[in-house]
């Protein structure tokens, strides 16, 4: 019995971490199953096994109870078959573990997406220079024509952007699969919801090639739109993606002060 107690203890602890923790997580966030990361699991198991070993070998009785059966297995003449099985199992396990370490693995380099590159202070688009720090959407002021401008932005979006960024602004337009990483998802709270309109305007105007060199790699297929659509169309498209995705543009202090 001394022999089984620590093993059962370790096993129960393992189950608690493996299933118990995610279960608790799933209660507070239904529909999720937050597993414990492998590295953390390994660390926990190390301490649990060490602890179980220390605790069960604290007394002589305990020590003998734990080590005795092992010694018996390896020395008892009547347990020859069982011994052979144990020796094979341990050897094969070691063989498998070492193979996992040395086998070649070829994971593709991760395509990092930097959603919010630091914008330059100014950008050349449509044949002129825009000061991005102070730039604001000139059409926002025109409250009377807001709906009209948004709709015209939608028309620009559906003639140019929707093929990649999608009907639902989720970055899954019908051609999205050809791109790695996939096009930006405007519904996601981490994209346009965190940005000012002037930033989005700059990203549309100069596209992938306009991104600053210091933050490379920019694995993006975003075209240089200022050569294909007008300045006004770009502003309207910006208004449309905010409106249709249900996000609000951020307003920077500089822009707010200017009001």
């Amino acid at each position, binding site marked *: 019995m001394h022999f089984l107690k620590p093993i059962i203890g370790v096993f129960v602890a393992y189950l608690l971490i493996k299933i118990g923790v995610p279960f608790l997580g799933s209660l507070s966030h239904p529909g999720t199953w937050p597993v414990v990361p492998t590295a953390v699991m390994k660390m926990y198991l190390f301490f649990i096994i060490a602890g179980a070993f220390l605790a069960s070998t604290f007394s002589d009785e305990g020590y003998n109870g734990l080590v005795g059966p092992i010694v018996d297995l390896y020395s008892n003449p009547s347990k020859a078959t069982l011994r052979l099985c144990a020796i094979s199992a341990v*050897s094969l396990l070691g063989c498998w573990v070492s*193979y996992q370490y040395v*086998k070649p693995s*070829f994971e593709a*380099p991760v395509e990092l997406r930097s959603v919010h590159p630091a914008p330059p202070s100014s950008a050349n688009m449509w044949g002129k220079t825009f000061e991005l720090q102070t730039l604001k959407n000139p059409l926002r002021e025109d409250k009377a024509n807001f709906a009209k401008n948004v709709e015209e932005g939608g028309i620009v979006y559906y003639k140019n952007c929707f093929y990649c960024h999608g009907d639902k602004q989720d970055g899954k337009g*019908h051609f*999205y699969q*050809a791109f790695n990483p996939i096009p930006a998802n405007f519904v996601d709270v981490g994209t346009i919801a965190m940005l000012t309109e002037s930033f989005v305007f700059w990203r549309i105007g100069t596209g992938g090639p306009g991104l600053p060199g210091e933050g490379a790699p920019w*694995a993006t297929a975003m075209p240089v739109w200022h050569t294909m659509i007008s300045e006004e169309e770009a502003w309207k498209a910006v208004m449309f993606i905010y409106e249709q995705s249900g996000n609000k543009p951020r307003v920077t202090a500089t822009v707010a002060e200017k009001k």
Partner: protein
Amino acid sequence: MSLFKNVRKTGLAMATLFAVVTIFAAPEAFAAGDAKKGEAIYQKRCWWCHGKKGAADGPATTFLIPPPRDFTLGMYKYKSSDPKVEIPRDEDLFKVITNGMPGTGMPAWNDILTEQDRWDVVAYVKSLTDMFGKTANPPQIDVSKKIKSSAESIELGKKAFQTAKCFECHGQVGKGDLTKKLKEDSGIRVWPRNLTKPWTFRGGYTAEDIFARVSNGIPNTPMPSFAADTTSSGKLSVEDRWHVVNYVMSLAEPTSKTVDGQTVVKGFQRDVMPKDENDAVWNETASTAYFLAPQIIQPERFFTPANDLIKVKALYNDKEIAFLLEWDDRTKSIPGDPTAELIAWDTISPDQVAIQTPVVIPSGSEKPYFGHGDAAHPVAMMAWNSGTTTAPAAGMTMIYSGSGKRTPGDAAAAGFTSSGTYKDGTWKVMMKRKLVTANKDKDTQFEVGRFIPIAFANWDGSNGEKGSKHTMTSWAWLLLQPPTGKEVYLVPLLVLVLLAGGQLAAAAYLKKNRK
């Protein structure tokens, strides 16, 4: 404890309520959509393609093939109602809104529109035509005689596929390599479905979906109804239609589907390089599938592709590297060729394919611009075209240092060769080159064990594709897999021997000292 008990009770009650609602409120109850509410959703989400009044005249309409449905006509392509009934079932419309139409611009709306929202849109869309009138929702086609798939049934289906002449449009092996010019009643060009890619079936690909399609046909297109109780000329019995369903489902080719996150084409080491694209060695080589998108990022932009996927294989030895590019193409585009001209709509150009790699493999993670690189980061291109009746198929190499900035490469010095075969709706093109060349500023120097950016482009010459009008991928990766080293086998073997030996020694020692 009482708090927990209450929580549990409430939870149980909620679950029961939910179950009851799900069971009893299933489609029929929701089917009563509110057209007024549906209109609001339509005018926010749908009109961009389908038009403000449903006449398929939105801003995106002309950029989409197949074009969005014109709801004012009330004619629907995908219906599961009985073949004798002209109109679709409400469930057919609901299904399209819910699941979208794979391979078209119509997305699945189930993640942002609730079930009720979708029924509301169905009600509104139905109100845009008088086709439905006061007619009750028609019954579903009888699917009770479904035949389970078996080798026998598939064989019978294959026969029926021939008798009913399905191959005339869908091709002998189902790739949709048509033998005649196909157009919808409205006059626009229409492509037959590639049956080896069921996940692109617009109306779904369960056995029931396909049975409904074979039975009902696709109204207003060349796809006829094969139901024996209609006036269609080529008819199939109910049993034969189910056999055809089983045959069609057996044609699915899983390697013709992209796998999320799979971006690496692996090059495997071989002592002897393949002779050509039909070498048996290629059959044993794993492929990686890439989705092709049309070039829509710079003029002249192209929105209406015909080919959607390219499969790539690679092999290498100490001297050479060989690529096999394989893609389903419904048309073998040889300008001047009578068979090609017969199904042509416009001037035909040769079919083409190209591989792009950076001239200098980037040491960091920064890659050249995927659209032909730039002056500082040129890219090397290996290309092949299917030729014309007067000029044979040919390959070439070139260097791009930015869009439109092209200089010819030295194909002979690079040992570049290429060849292609078209059979049953599939092109296979092999390109071979020296692994390393003397022109370090013109040719990519392929290195074993390194991740090399690679991109592909494809032109379907019978779909008006030439020059900048083509389909393409963005950067993927090529990895020439180094041969597995000896240590991969030696280390585990050593561990095995040591562990077994150690244990045996320990056992011997313990036995000797056993009290």
